[in-house]
């Protein structure tokens, strides 16, 4: 179902609808800060106006999963309400997100895939690091695991597909690349992203306020630090 030229609504499940956002009448979904800002705007509108019937929302790059309470509303009514609410919602000219700097210890010791990426990109390891550091990223989505922030987009030259066989253990704080996305692993976990360094900042701490240093829409820059500074800031090396 079409809500306007840039927003479509689809069924997801028994109690879930999904909104898709695009640039004009495109069929395929693309990563774009502009689209992601519209996602954020729509998310806020839904939270403000429909919280009485909404169980939870999952905003992502270009979509919002809307999980609703089947006892309180049915999908027909929710569709109508979303349509009414989001009709006016269009490519937002919202303000820039906060700029967050994340320290990163890039090295062969902390970035076990640096050499592979360099070979794949036909660049030196130093160039790979410089390109990763040179970019300002946007937090497009948070999910997959607690505190996992999807950052985009990595310079095309160092984009790298996921490992064919994921590692059983990616260390906590690993800074990694998958295609044109980058992220910091909030906890040790299995994972298939390519590791280029380690970040000493806690990405998810239930005891801290805020629990996460990042929010969707924030801008992120990685700042290279050396081994000593990494350790001083609480970083660990196995």
């Amino acid at each position, binding site marked *: 179902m079409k809500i306007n030229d840039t927003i479509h609504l*689809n*069924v*997801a*499940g*028994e*109690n*879930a609808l*999904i909104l898709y956002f695009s640039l004009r009448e495109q069929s395929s*979904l*693309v*990563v774009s800060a502009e689209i992601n800002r519209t996602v954020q705007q729509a998310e806020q509108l839904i939270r403000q106006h429909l919280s009485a019937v909404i*169980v*939870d*929302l*999952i*905003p*992502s*790059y*270009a*979509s*919002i*999963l809307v*999980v609703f309470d*089947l*006892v309180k509303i*049915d*999908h027909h009514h929710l569709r109508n309400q979303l349509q009414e609410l989001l009709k006016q919602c269009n490519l937002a000219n919202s303000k820039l997100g906060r700029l967050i700097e994340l320290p990163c210890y890039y090295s062969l010791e902390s970035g076990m895939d640096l050499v592979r990426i360099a070979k794949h990109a036909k660049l030196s390891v130093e160039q790979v690091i410089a390109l990763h550091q040179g970019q300002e990223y946007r937090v497009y*989505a*948070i*999910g*997959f*695991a*607690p*505190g*996992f922030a*999807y950052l985009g987009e990595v310079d095309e030259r160092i984009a790298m597909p996921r490992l064919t066989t994921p590692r059983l253990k990616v260390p906590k704080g690993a800074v990694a690349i998958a295609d044109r996305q980058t992220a910091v692993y*909030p*906890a040790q*976990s299995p994972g298939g992203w390519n590791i280029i360094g380690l970040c000493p900042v806690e990405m*998810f701490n*239930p005891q801290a306020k805020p*629990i*996460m240093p990042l929010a*969707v829409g924030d801008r992120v820059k990685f700042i290279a630090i050396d081994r000593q500074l990494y350790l001083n800031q609480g970083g660990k090396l196995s």
Partner: protein
Amino acid sequence: MSKVLTKAAINPLGFLVTNAGVLSLVQDAGRFGAFNLGLTNGGPADSLAFYWANSLCGNALNATVIEISLGGLQLIAQVDCIIAVTGAPMPLTVNGRAKTLWQSFLVKAGDSVCLGFASVGVRCYLAVAGGFVIKASFGSTATVCRESVGGLKGAKIAVNEVLPCHVVSRGGYLRKHLMLPESRQPHYANEVLLHTVLSYQQQHFSAIEKRLFFANDYQVSKHWDRMGYRLQGRAIKADINGILSEGICYGAVQIPADGQPIVLLNDRQTIGGYPKIGAVISSDCAKLSQLRQGDSVHFEAISMSQADNLFHLNLSRLKQTQLIHL
């Protein structure tokens, strides 16, 4: 029933774990409203058995219980209390004497409560009147091991832990003995029909692929857990490889590159990038979670309106079911 709850007092005592079994987890109805931090729902894999366990104890419907997968949990009561066990038919004994599932009964301090292993079905729910008293994390006590969130320590129940519960005052005992009529007790089998709403990327599966998906049986592979059930059978192909990562709902059926469907359940990742053909309705996800490797499922397509009807029909049946006072 509420009289008993008001007289209850919080007590650090409860049940001492003498054998944790294969996988025993603290669960309430689940964690909702924390998707923005990347936290999944957790909660009871079989929400129907969970509902009856709490109902039989006169509890609020989101009270904290223990979910026992496969079996083997052994506890010693440290207080007098009323408990009920529902779900897969695991042999239940108190001090060695067999007890019936689907009814509440009194256990006394010092009693030993043991669960054997289910021959069919996977999960049981042990509820105590007033609920287990566990500190909530992000609004819920539900344990998600992968996230190290919920329960006592963000992990499965371990031997020598104590699961605190409310103490029921004397006089509240007798009226608490309830039973679910046998005709209303779920039947656990090795085959389940999964009613599925076509959704998400369904337009990227051709009419033939969809027909094959709904015409063939699938078997539960060796990869089945609270995160999802990976199935084996006729491979289904989408005309796309991946999508921009997006929110995954309960019951979503993901089709990865190998074409073997994965039904995503309570502990699923919140965001993912594989194409999805549809989503299984919640009441059938509960049934699926009682299957194990080698068991069989069949998908049946239904419309969103039919799914809505089934949900409300199930709900009204639940509400109209009268528990038997023993």
